[in-house]
């Protein structure tokens, strides 16, 4: 009994010592508190419009007719497209495109009306600016919805001309009806998909860098042992890693709550999962990140500023490794295996499943297990890393 009490006291001593350290260091405070406070708001604001609508487009109608006018009207009526310019020829439209006044050219050729009237197929050409994919996506969606609509209108006219009317004609025009249901992000919005993952990256990276900076500070001039209570220096070091983990955990509970609960509420991001599932899932995530950062920091970081210098740019790789943009099913094996070194991969996957698709813990079991395995693995390694430091400083 006494031993357990002693053990807990030892851990608590490390924890309080570490908390004091965190609050006496301007840089860690910046990384632990200012960055997670700012970034979610900035990202939320940047992507607040979700979709790119009213993309300016130029139309070239080489031989106007009732039909082409109807098509252009429909085009302008789509939410995605705004017909800003009517051009007489391609050169004029091209110049507008070069000046970035439009992002697509919609060309209805001279023979279009004639072809349709002769019961043939009329061709329309669409030229898209591919420099920004979201413009292309919007224009393509808008234009193809007009095409499908026009298809049905003309078909009905033709069936009527061929003597097929009423329900039969309707069934002929639409032999199969598709109810397309976009689950979890119905508007196809950019932020609903992007920010969820970004928020997890923010948690992962700020925690990682904060701990890394503390490790670097300790290792500068080989003074790491100063930050371990004297009577614990020669004992088993798991008390130290545990105590520190407890400290970061306590500091990060409010931060995580803010980033993953309050911010999504503000920006009305999908939050389908239950609080219980979310908390249960985030526990191993935080633990895995904390032990991972301690392992990395003790082994590799020798100055407090170098971890940001050498690893900050890696965040963008981390984001793409998580598989929210480029799906995991299409990643080369090597990168897929590599991605599981980092707690961010299962963390982001699991969080997106819980928050955006309303999965319960049972559905994210593989990610959940992966996080626990990572936490255990890095816990053991963080002890060894501290031992290495002790050995390193004693010689």
């Amino acid at each position, binding site marked *: 009994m006494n031993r357990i009490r002693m053990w807990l006291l030892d851990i608590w001593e490390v924890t309080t010592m570490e908390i004091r350290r965190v609050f006496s260091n301007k840089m860690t405070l910046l990384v632990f508190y200012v960055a997670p406070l700012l970034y979610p708001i900035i990202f939320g604001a940047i992507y607040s419009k979700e979709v790119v609508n009213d993309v300016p487009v130029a139309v070239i109608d080489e031989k106007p007719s009732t039909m082409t006018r109807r098509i252009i009207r429909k085009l302008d009526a789509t939410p995605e497209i705004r017909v800003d310019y009517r051009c007489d020829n391609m050169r004029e439209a091209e110049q507008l495109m070069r000046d970035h006044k439009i992002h697509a050219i919609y060309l209805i050729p001279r023979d279009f009306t004639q072809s349709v009237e002769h019961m043939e197929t009329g061709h329309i050409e669409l030229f898209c600016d591919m420099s920004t994919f979201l413009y292309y996506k919007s224009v393509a969606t808008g234009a193809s919805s007009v095409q499908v609509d026009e*298809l049905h209108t003309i078909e009905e006219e033709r069936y009527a001309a061929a003597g097929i009317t009423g329900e039969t004609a309707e069934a002929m025009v*639409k*032999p199969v009806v598709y109810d397309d249901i976009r689950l979890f992000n119905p508007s196809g919005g950019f932020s609903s998909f992007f920010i969820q993952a970004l928020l997890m990256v923010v948690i992962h990276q700020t925690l990682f860098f904060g701990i890394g900076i503390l490790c670097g500070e300790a290792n500068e001039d080989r003074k790491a042992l100063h930050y371990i209570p004297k009577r614990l220096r020669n004992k088993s070091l798991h008390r130290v890693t545990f105590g520190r983990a407890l400290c970061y955990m306590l500091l990060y509970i409010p931060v995580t709550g803010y980033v993953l609960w309050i911010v999504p509420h503000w920006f009305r991001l999908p939050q389908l999962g239950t609080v219980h599932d979310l908390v249960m899932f985030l526990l191993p995530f935080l633990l895995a990140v904390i032990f991972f950062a301690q392992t990395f920091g003790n082994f590799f970081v020798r100055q407090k500023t170098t971890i*940001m210098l050498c690893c900050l740019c890696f965040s963008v790789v981390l984001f793409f490794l998580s598989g929210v943009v480029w799906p995991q099913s299409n990643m080369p094996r090597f990168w897929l295996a590599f991605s599981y070194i980092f707690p961010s991969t299962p963390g982001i996957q699991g969080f997106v499943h819980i928050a955006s698709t309303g999965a319960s813990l049972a559905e994210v079991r593989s990610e959940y297990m992966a996080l626990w395995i990572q936490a255990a693995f890095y816990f053991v390694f963080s002890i060894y890393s501290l031992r290495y430091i002790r050995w390193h400083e004693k010689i």
Partner: protein
Amino acid sequence: MNFKEQILTFQRVMVRELRRVRRQPRYVIILTLLATLIFTFFATMMHEGIPEKLPVAVVDLDGSYLSRRLCHELNATQSVEVVAIYNNHTEARKAMQRGEIFAFYEIPEGMYNDLLNFRSPHFGLYSNTAYLLAGMLSYKQLARLGMLAAGAVQREVLRKKGYDDNAIQGLIQPVNMTTHQIGNPWTSYRIYLMTTIVPVAVSFIVILLTVYLIGREVETKGVNRLMRHAHNNAVVALAGKLFPYWFWFSLLALIFNLIMFGPMHYPMNGSWLLMMANTMLLVFAAQCAGVMIAGCLPDAPFSMGVGGIYGALSFSLSGFSFPVEHMPRIFNGISLIYPARHYFLNYRDIAFFGNGLEHCWPSMCALIGFGVLWLIGAWRFQHNFDRGLLVPSSKTLEKKEKGGDE
């Protein structure tokens, strides 16, 4: 000090810096490797250009010949692959929540009979747009196949009614649209991402490195020697110190661009010379931003944190993914203080539209204009140095005293 002397001073500082790098090349090597890793990562991870064989599923409540044929047709396409056939909706939804599939068809019971009797059966097409790219792509493919299937049914019926094939074609497809994707005809995701992310990553690394280098001089008390070498002229001192890095990282970014637009055949419609100037100016502007941050904030670790917070937004605010024009107004202004934004605008003009200097001069000038930040940073640096403010951060001193006691 006349011009010739200044050049000599510049040289002296530069030689000193090169010696320092030779003595401790660690960080330059690590950062070069990091940039190379980022390049290789995007080049190899998205080698398909656009995801292929995305996992989708079918909920087959009909179990007829036609529904099985639909599965075969789906498997024959390049972009999706049917990985499972479920018996009910819940199973499919759960698979979607586990992330195993990105979309699924729900074929209703009695579909075949309804079809034959002109009762327009309703198909369910579900897609998971929480994964925007994969979800939208598989949705698009499924919808397209659905249209084709509908067309096949129409054709069958009309043929039985005695129409010839030409008339049928006109009846079921009166309007056809061809899409031309200017500058990226393969809709390759790799081209779209890499061309901006890789140079921007280099610029981000340069910002951090610049802040680090200046901070390091302060922390190691090398700043006195540096200023002595430069005859107490901060502008020359910083120029000489940072020039080798500008050279090295410009070279690196140029090599990346050369590989992308050369052997990897990324679209490049404009002048190579302009693109090279754009790349080198990007690195220069990133250094200027770094000098500004490090010069104004003499506390080295703190300035590093600020540099990180500033630089990390380069990717978003360059506007290559979500257009800046569609962000809230204020970000239109904020994006201008990012070299990455101007680089992207230039790149778009040069590589996509083949525009010349008459189009991209504003952004080119803006990149050169970052030089003003350099001057401000250097001025603050000089000011702080003259006042004796450039000493190692107080924490290090305290620690050393404490360490000395024991």
